[in-house]
């Protein structure tokens, strides 16, 4: 009788990390589907390209670091990072822009910090921010016009060709600004009615963005339902954004209205799939609320007064900086104690 010697608990719930990550990846499918329907093949190609590159980079780094490759690749975290980048980068972004973003995410932001669980910053957002700063032209002109209303939507091969060749001139004909960008740049000179006259807002681009955001919202709600993420971060991100927009920007003639904030850009993807990355987020209930609200507020601030049209990546990264601080000051009150023990040992003992 070979009796196994193990410590309690002897029972475990079988839902390993790899499984969680897989569910998160599956939950992005409605959003990806909407992207493909409305903006063409670009994002789908990006997603495949980014996942493949992410897995390759992860494997190479694990090898260099002398870690078991298969064991870590199987946790699906690298694939998820690739997927998130593929979803957030402009659909017609040239292949090398995606490559730089993915490599920066996996190598710089993740593996050089010690791999899974040790990275203080959200890897996908590090990659995204890096290419946004480095290649502003490629990043802002490659947003595709919705394919549905497009007379001659580029075929899969055409799209592939655009991405691989990276020829900006051919893209010009197919691309236009995002609704966030459009509204922000024109509202200073025009009224909201005039701004909304622009083709970006008609049945066109804005409708596409709305569907994409609805797709990610749907996936996010499913994750909540599956208890893979908790409500705290998405709700506080959206709440923070909405609150700022209500406090500062109710006048649509001056500021982007709430509906556009919520349904354009990377809002839902950010709130449900990016800000909820557990490794780089705050951990306690209260901490998550603060963290999420911070992201919501920063998204609004940067979108409204910053230099970039969308701000999810910067907002997430800035709040990543604040996580250790938030975690120190938001531990829950333990059962049987009068108050929570905040701060670092030696101070504020309660």
């Amino acid at each position, binding site marked *: *009788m*070979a*009796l*196994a*010697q*193990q*410590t*309690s*608990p*002897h*029972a*475990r*719930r079988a*839902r*390993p*990390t790899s*499984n*969680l990550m897989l569910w998160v990846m599956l939950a992005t499918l409605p959003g990806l589907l909407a992207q493909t329907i409305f903006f063409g093949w670009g994002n789908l190609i990006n997603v495949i390209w980014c996942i493949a590159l992410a897995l390759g980079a992860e494997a190479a780094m694990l090898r260099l670091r002398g870690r078991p490759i298969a*064991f870590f690749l199987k*946790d699906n*975290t690298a694939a998820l990072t690739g997927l998130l980048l593929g979803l957030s980068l402009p659909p017609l972004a040239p292949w090398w822009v995606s490559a730089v973003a993915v490599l920066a995410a996996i190598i710089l932001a993740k593996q050089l910090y010690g*791999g*899974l*669980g*040790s990275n203080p910053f959200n890897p996908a957002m590090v990659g995204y921010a890096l290419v946004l700063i480095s290649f502003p032209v490629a990043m802002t002109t490659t947003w595709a016009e919705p394919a549905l209303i497009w007379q001659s939507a580029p075929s899969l091969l055409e799209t592939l060709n655009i991405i691989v060749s990276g020829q900006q001139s051919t893209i010009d004909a197919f691309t236009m600004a995002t609704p966030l960008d459009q509204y922000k740049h024109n509202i200073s000179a025009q009224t909201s009615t005039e701004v909304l006259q622009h083709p970006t807002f008609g049945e066109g681009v804005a409708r596409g963005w709305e569907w994409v955001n609805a797709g990610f919202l749907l996936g996010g709600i499913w994750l909540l339902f599956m208890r893979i993420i*908790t409500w705290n971060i998405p709700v506080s991100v959206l709440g923070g954004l909405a609150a700022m927009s209500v406090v500062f920007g109710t006048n649509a003639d001056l500021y982007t209205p709430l509906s556009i904030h919520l349904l354009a850009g990377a809002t839902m993807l950010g709130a449900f799939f990016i800000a909820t990355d*557990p*490794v780089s*987020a705050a*951990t*306690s*209930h209260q901490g*998550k609320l603060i963290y999420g609200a911070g992201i919501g507020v920063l998204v609004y601030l940067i979108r409204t007064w910053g230099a970039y049209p969308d701000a999810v990546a910067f907002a997430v990264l800035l709040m990543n900086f604040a996580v250790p601080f938030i*975690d120190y000051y938001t*531990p*829950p*009150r*333990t*059962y*049987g*104690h009068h108050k929570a*023990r905040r701060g*670092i*040992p*030696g101070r504020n*003992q309660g």
Partner: protein
Amino acid sequence: MTQLWDFSGGIHPAENKYLSTTRPIETPTLPERLVLPLQQHIGAPAEACVSVGERVLKGQPIAKVTGAFGVPVHAPTSGNIEAISMQPVPHPSGMSDWCITLIPDGQEEWAERDPMTDYRSLTREAVLQRIRESGIAGLGGAGFPTDVKLRPPKDRKVNTLILNGAECEPYITADDMAMRERADEIVTGLRIMAWILRPERCIVAIEDNKPEAVAAIRKATEGTQTEVVVIPTKYPSGGEKQLIQILTGMEVPSGGIPADIGVMCQNTGTAIAVSRAVLHGEPLISRITTVTGRALSNPGTFDVLLGTPVEHLLTQAGLESEALRRLILGGPMMGYTLETPSVPVVKTTNCVIAATGQELPTPPPEQPCIRCGMCAEACPMELLPQQLFWHSKAGEHEKAEHLNLFDCIECGICSYVCPSSIPLVQYYRAAKGEIRVQRAEHLKADRARERFEARQARLEREQQEKEDRRKERARAAAEAQARNQAEAEDAGPESPAADNRAAKSALVEQALARKKAKASQPAAPAVSPESKGESKVETTEQAPDIDALEKQLSQATAKLNTMQSMLEDARAENADNVEKLERAVAKNHDRVKRAEKALAEARN
């Protein structure tokens, strides 16, 4: 309707209770031998009071306790004592301990029993004493001596007495089956405890997955003030702290006991034991234990004699040896694995699980923590398990303690939910262990320092006193001399030599006068003729001699003190020079005594 509160966190693991609830409680056959550990619970081990070869009767005490903390052990059946020896005992570390081995003779011959049928006419103290003598320790978890628990601190009044029938761990059905079949005995036991404590409320709490038990207890409590409260099924609602929160909304203060907020919890098994001890005069010699798991063809609930080897029980329950992978004592959440099935059932054994590899698979290898917070979400104590893990692993004990490591009840929930398969509880246990060891060492070092400082202070004080005495004497001598000189001057001018002589003879006269006065006292200590002679000779030089003797004495005393503290240190460290130091201390002790005696004589 009692208001129910919720506690934060908690989980709903697969219950697997149906495995062992299909049949009524069974009594296993008498095993070949019973092995009774002298320590089956928290507290001091009992001392064997029988000898090898002796025949004992069922219920006869075979090991007694002398200290306040601990309970005696009784013979579970009649038979012969085969051995008193080290045997493997049920313990997470798989250790051995002193046990009495009893070979049953099959006669089941009872020792004399003394029922207290009308216990209400007796003093509460007498009933408490009976509970203690019956060897009752909490039958739930840690096995705290029940009579000690039933004596809450004088300044604490128990308002609410809770009988814990929640039984929230998966697999375990001992309390459930006992409530179904022995509800009357349980309620009687509860009433006896309530009579001792005089609480305002008595509650029996049962999880809603045990409808039969609820019905049985409801029936048994009909017409009484006892409330039967059905609580939602959730692990760990049977944890004392969580149960109190569910029923009262109050929290037991950290580091405190439930009595601090006027509550006491007792286990249903304990209630049965109390009832049998008081009403029938039967000590605790058996307990109800679940024997379950998928490696058994016939799992069930058994009324087991204490000391029955687990092996024997497994055989009774139809063990399929090839299928057995893990043998667990207790539940799957908090129980521990056994290295060998030959350990005995003790007072705290509520469940044995013989699990197959499929049933409780080996956990996958540990992955890095992804800070998902699921552990914090589910922790019933509202701790931050991942931070505790981080600090425990890094050996940052101060930080772990700051995050209330010691409030962790080791319920295992965090490990259960962790997607990275990190054995979190194991890290906490290790950290707690290390901290305890460190604390013990600090305490020891502090004690040693205090002892050293005290000795230093004492030596200084003695030195000071000696100095004071010397000065006093010098002053007295100077005065005497001055007086003598004045007398001599009165008598006329004389040489310094004569002067000296006069002073000396004056001293001698004084001494003689003292001596005479002493001798005339009836209670004067007997002095040997020899020393009398000596003292006569010495009389002339008495003053300087006392000084010398005093010096000798203080030196001897100082030496003795040094040796004594060295001995204490050595004893504390279990050093091997203890014996040598003991001899040295004895020798120095004699020296001091001799010096004292000599000094006393000299002063006479």
